[in-house]
């Protein structure tokens, strides 16, 4: 049960219940779809990028608490960041989720470290981030976590 509490940390449960930026965006400059083939859940990500700056980001979708919280946290982190800052965050996220280790300056991202112990849920957490990364790089094909 302890592992499980690491997975469903309070911040994750909060973001799940009150996801940030959970809405459609009319004037998005890019939009991308993500799909987790393991569970069938889907996510749509909207970005508004101006002069290398992410001025707005939002998402919609039908995922589990982990995927919803991960997406919600991500939107709060990358908003008003430059593309290159978002890329750094993506790398930090990736390192946490694949090693379970975070260090001091990773901030909110640290709550996702618990997912590491549940390999099948890693894809839930990763879905929004991969979709974002693809969208940033102009790849609007369906992103899948497979």
């Amino acid at each position, binding site marked *: 049960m302890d592992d*499980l509490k690491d997975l*469903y940390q309070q911040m994750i*449960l909060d973001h799940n*219940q009150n996801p940030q930026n959970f809405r459609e965006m009319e004037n998005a400059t890019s939009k991308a779809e993500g799909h987790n083939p393991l*569970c*069938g859940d889907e996510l749509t990500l909207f970005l508004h990028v101006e002069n290398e700056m992410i001025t707005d980001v939002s998402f919609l979708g039908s995922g589990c608490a982990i995927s*919803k919280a991960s997406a919600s946290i991500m939107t709060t982190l990358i908003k008003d960041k430059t593309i290159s800052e978002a890329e750094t965050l993506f790398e930090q996220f990736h390192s946490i989720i694949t090693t379970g280790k975070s260090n001091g300056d990773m901030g909110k991202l640290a709550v996702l470290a618990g997912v590491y112990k549940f390999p099948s849920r890693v894809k839930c957490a990763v879905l929004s981030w991969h979709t974002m990364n693809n969208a940033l790089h102009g790849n609007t094909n369906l992103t899948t976590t497979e």
Partner: protein
Amino acid sequence: MLEVKNIREDFPIFTERADNFVYLDSSATTLKPQTVIDAVADYYSKYSANVHRSIYSIGEKATAEYEGSRKKVADLINADYHSVIFTRGTTESINLVAYAWARKNLKPGDEILLTEMEHHSNIIPWQICSQETGAVLKHIPFDENGELELSQHEKLFTDKTKLVAIIHQSNVFGTINPVKDIIEMAKGVGAVTLIDAAQSVPHQKVDVQDLDCDFLAFSGHKMLGPTGVGVLYGKPEILEEMPPFMGGGEMIRTVSLNESTWNEIPWKFEAGTPNIAQAIGLGSAIDYINEIGLDKIHEHEQDILTYALEKMQKIPEVNIYGSADERGAVVSFNLDNIHPHDLSQLLDNDDIAIRAGHHCAQPIMKKLGVSATGRASFYLYNSKEDVDRLCESLVKTVKFMGS
């Protein structure tokens, strides 16, 4: 009620996983009794030969066991031995009909009548077939109880209806559809009938002669048998007329470089080395079921179902989908504001396995307006205590997720 304690002793997983493992996903696939596991292992360790045309003792034994299983299947569904085709599962059985029967017999404008509650396996083959033949798909709707809405049947069953392919028991709602009436309606307009019996044959007596259906499909792994084996029953006179599905060894009589003739039914439809161990394992599963008795199993499940519905309905956050009068022991539900995948993860932590997802029935999900549901399904090794454990964990989950 069955003596569940004794039955659980026949299933090694309960020893492996500690006795209090609660498995509520038999609609997806069932656990396996030791006798089935042994039957498979016996083939591999004592007479692992290819079947037919092996003129040495272990080959003859393999052939006798493989064909003996066919006889057991035939007896189970009251069919002629020659009308039982071994496939990989329900899905392949239905595809076989879609390829070998439908493509030859349907033309543009013909209608294929399905229901709105089909499993993807009884949807996609007909969508593909409809694209290739020009036949049109129609659907019998279901109502808010998860029951088929047959009042409009005269609009649905017409001269154009050439095939009626319907699910016997819904894997989402549990509804047992009035297939006998529907087959009658189909015959009234001269349509061929296919019954997706994946969820019925394991749980109740199904008699193809009584139903008088033309085709019937089911899977071994959902009835205590191995994965990789299923059955297509077809009326012999229809099978005789059909061209083969796949080509290869076994299904031929004579072959020359440019031309061939086919073997008799059912072998005409079994190309290549068959799933020998799996068919033998299915035969052993049928023996096990017969020993306990399908009627008793059905009764046992019904008892648990009644208890489960009553108890789950008392949890305010639980929403149950489907409330048909005639139904099997399958309960689809959701907890307010909790994604079923999280539910399933949390129940797993309490050693309870339920299914969460669209259950290969996305059209039902769409109509219900949900992306997924949880589903608890019961079989002979489940007990009322399992229901108690489930309900406790549901309450705990609601609290944990803070919804």
